[in-house]
């Protein structure tokens, strides 16, 4: 933890203020990473204590906002009062681009049933039906998705039957998500609901063969700031074809077709591991975890993909690409490290970024003294090996678990069991994720669902040089004179993935750490010494 009190003391001071019950609850979510190799159990994916200022959002945000929303050529309709549709309108920076001029990018639109009081009283199904009809008449989309907000579930609107009816009537794909905001304890529930819906309503619809040698899907990559495009650029250089990036910058057709891939690589384990699992079961392609955030992570991920396909042509090409890209990266790192080496970061964000971005900081010679997720589960902290020991609580129990079986026609084991075992024996890990804590240094702080109070305390006690967090914390942190990098929106910059993204990130963190703006916070007359102030007011040179 560098200077300041120990992690243990810090934790104590953070907890001190809480009422007893809250303290007990929070204590389980705040760990000192004493044994990184065998992480302690963290109370992740549990309810936020009411009244605590939390970073967390809701199920709707996770489903519509994160996972499905980015699919640009589905027409998205929020069924509910106006707010939810409004707030999820263009605010997440999942970039997307139409493929042909005659397409429409529906992400520029916010569509909603704008539920009024009488819909609450008399039911909103008719309104939804009509809205779908109007949307169809206006835009003639190829697919429409519907998202339920809090009141919808409570008043009993059956969005799925409405969708089915309209699907039949209009002859296009129409499906709904019961992602009411109160479901689960965070966005995470929404991801699960989204995965289920994508799996049920899109995956496998289009069996058109894809002509490419190395075909993969990138799962859990949402193209914030163009990350997916940078990953695509690199993979393309290597000769690897991405069928679908779920769901950054992706099209409906690509998703329907993405079961043609030979491999799923997973960026954000939290939001999409369900999908990887279900696809493997149904179609037979394996998955493994990758991380294109950070130079070392990107290299490792590329090499792992090459190793998976195991062809010299590809392995060589990957090394060439890495060498070529590193020629650009190296001088930037060298320059930047002069100022970043030894600096301290803390990361509290998302369900995978708090982990991934440690790599980028580490590339710069910075240490992460404390980190935690906003909505992750225990496996994201401790690794997938804890999965069997995770208890399903009341909040999670209500989220549907799909029961998947192998597709009788389309199941196709991409790697024979033998080959897979051989790979695994050589140290290759499939379907695994080691979690964040294993990678973090001993005696760092791990805080799940950090509260505003804990964050303030951390800054007060440890003055990190930079904090990675979200929009709601950003200005709190910066009022204290500490630069805060938004790791949801990238502060409207990016990409930060891959090689070019890393360069962007290094330069950006360098800027944030080197900026003199924090020195400006103090007016010269604040210094008590009269002499000093007098000096500051010295006459300027006359030209």
């Amino acid at each position: 933890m560098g200077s300041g009190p120990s992690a243990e003391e810090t934790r104590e001071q953070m907890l001190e203020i809480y009422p007893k019950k809250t303290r007990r609850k929070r204590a389980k979510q705040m760990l000192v990473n004493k044994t990184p190799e065998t992480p302690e159990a963290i109370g992740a994916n549990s309810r936020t204590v009411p009244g605590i200022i939390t970073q967390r959002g809701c199920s709707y945000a996770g489903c519509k906002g994160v996972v499905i929303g980015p699919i640009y050529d589905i027409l998205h309709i929020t069924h509910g009062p106006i707010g939810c549709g409004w707030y999820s309108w263009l605010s997440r920076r999942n970039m997307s681009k139409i493929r042909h001029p005659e397409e429409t990018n529906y992400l520029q639109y916010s569509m909603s049933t704008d539920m009024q009081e009488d819909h609450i009283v008399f039911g909103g199904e008719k309104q939804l039906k009509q809205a779908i009809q109007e949307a169809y008449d206006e835009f003639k989309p190829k697919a429409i998705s519907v998202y339920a907000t809090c009141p919808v579930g409570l008043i009993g609107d059956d969005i799925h039957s409405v969708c089915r009816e309209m699907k039949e009537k209009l002859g296009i794909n129409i499906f709904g998500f019961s992602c009411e905001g109160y479901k689960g304890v965070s966005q995470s529930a929404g991801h699960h609901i989204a995965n289920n819906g994508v799996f049920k309503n899109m995956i496998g619809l289009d069996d058109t063969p894809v002509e490419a040698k190395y075909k993969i899907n990138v799962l859990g990559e949402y193209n914030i700031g163009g990350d997916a495009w940078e990953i695509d650029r690199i993979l393309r250089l290597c000769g690897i074809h991405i069928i679908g990036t779920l769901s950054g910058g992706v099209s409906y057709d690509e998703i329907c077709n993405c079961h043609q891939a030979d491999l799923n690589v997973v960026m954000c384990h939290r939001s999409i591991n369900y999908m990887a699992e279900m696809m493997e079961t149904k179609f037979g392609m394996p998955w493994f975890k990758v991380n294109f955030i950070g130079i070392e992570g990107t290299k490792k991920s590329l090499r792992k993909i090459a190793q998976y396909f195991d062809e010299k042509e590809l392995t060589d090409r990957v090394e060439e690409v890495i060498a070529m890209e590193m020629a650009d990266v190296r001088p930037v790192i060298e320059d930047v490290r002069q100022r970043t080496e030894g600096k301290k970061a803390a990361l509290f964000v998302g369900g995978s970024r708090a982990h991934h971005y440690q790599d980028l900081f580490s590339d710069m010679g910075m240490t992460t003294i404390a980190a935690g997720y906003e909505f992750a589960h225990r496996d994201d902290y401790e690794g997938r090996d804890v999965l069997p020991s995770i208890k399903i609580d009341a909040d999670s129990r209500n989220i549907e678990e799909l029961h998947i079986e192998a597709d009788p026609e389309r199941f196709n084991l991409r790697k024979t069991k033998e080959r897979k075992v051989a790979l695994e024996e050589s140290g290759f890990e499939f379907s695994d994720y080691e979690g964040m804590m294993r990678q973090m240094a001993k005696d760092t702080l791990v805080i799940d669902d950090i509260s505003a109070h804990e964050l303030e305390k951390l800054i007060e006690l440890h003055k990190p040089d930079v904090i990675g967090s979200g929009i709601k914390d950003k200005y709190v942190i910066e009022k204290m004179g500490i630069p805060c990098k938004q790791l949801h929106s990238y502060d409207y910059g990016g990409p930060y993935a891959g090689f070019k993204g890393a360069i962007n990130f290094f330069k950006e963190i360098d800027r944030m750490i080197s900026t003199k703006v924090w020195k400006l916070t103090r007016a010269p007359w604040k210094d008590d010494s009269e002499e000093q102030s007098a000096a500051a007011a010295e006459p300027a040179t006359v030209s």
Partner: protein
Amino acid sequence: MLEGTTAEIRERKALRINPAKTCQPIGAMYAALGIHKCMPHSHGSQGCCAYHRSHLTRHHKEPIVATTSSFTEGASVFGGLANLKTALENIFTIYEPDIVSVHTTCLSEVIGDDIPMIIKKSEESGIIPEGKLVIHANTPSFVGSHVTGFSAQCAAFVDYLAESTGAKKNVINLFPGWVEPADMREIKRLAEMLGVEYIMAPDTSDVLDSALEGEYQMYPDGGTTIPQLKAMGDSMATLALGPMASTLAADKLKKKCGVENKVLELPIGIGGTDAFVNAMRIAGDVTVPRELEKERGRLVDMVSDMSQYLHRKKVAIFGDPDHVTAMVKFLVEVGMEPAIVVTGTKGKKWVAKIKEICSEVNPDVEVAAFSDIHYLHQWIKGNPVDLLMGNTYGKYVAKSEKLPFVRFGFPILDRVGHRAFPLIGYTGGMRLIEKITDAFFDKRDREDADEDIELVL
């Protein structure tokens, strides 16, 4: 950009496309932040609170502090009493506000939580510390819009706090309406120039545009104080700025404490500011100082000098009813021609009022309440305009139609000037003239043929 939008307008009864409003609770949150040491509390799913905080943060680029009852499915079924009680205990223990202002959401409204009852129980069980307050406003998202949420929150201040001691004071109450912190600061400056003693509520200046000084204060040194809110009941009169945002509170105060009120449009532009200044002059029995008259005269001068560039320029405008009304008045006043005027909030009378304001310059003005930006965009495609005015979301329309665009209203997420400079008052009028002419001139300088570029404008 917005490729799917065509000029063909179809009647829509159920589908909102690109709304020109959001939901009530965010308005309540904004208003509550204008009370000193007040913690806004969102009683519902934590997503609402997260969305509102994020949105306000993006607009103000400032910390937005608020708590939530963090409903999960259980609370949604069994009611939010336990959640709210826990929340209050935590809030008072950890964040030590003087007052917590609870606002509801669609969720808690649908399940029918009785907030006053919960507050009462919390008081009884000692959760609310001595001397601390909890108030509430009902702000279901399926009623009204963010503007009515603001209005409801202002009314709650009155309901819970205003007191009449019987001793009238020579003080004027000001309900500023939903305007920026910089606008609230400007209203105070005007009141101070006029020498009128006032209480303004809410007051987000210094709260949502606080200084960067290396320290974080959860409750910055700003906002209306609780004693001030209480004292509103003893004031001579109330000026309510912005009918939609402020009438409710003013009327409640009249009913509760007998304080007479006058409802004015937002003081934007010459006439708008005149009405405010004059009402203050009469209510406060003061003389308008020469300095303020000069300020006014500088605006008139600027309008006069620029009028050739404003004359009969067609404007498409959308935003909140109070903002739009005042802005349309201003546009008409400076010789421009509102062509289409849209708000997302309901308001039949509002439509009639806008038509009345425009009747002389453009009897054919298209006015739509409970409408949306998609409709505005479609209409523009069929009826070209010279200028678009509205919040940040308008920029997609502006790009699509290559229109000069002046941002105003809520939210402005992609520019920084609204934080520092008011649109209210004569000063704000000058800013508007600058913004509008800049938008026109920038376009000319950029697009005109070389031989048409003017050195002097």
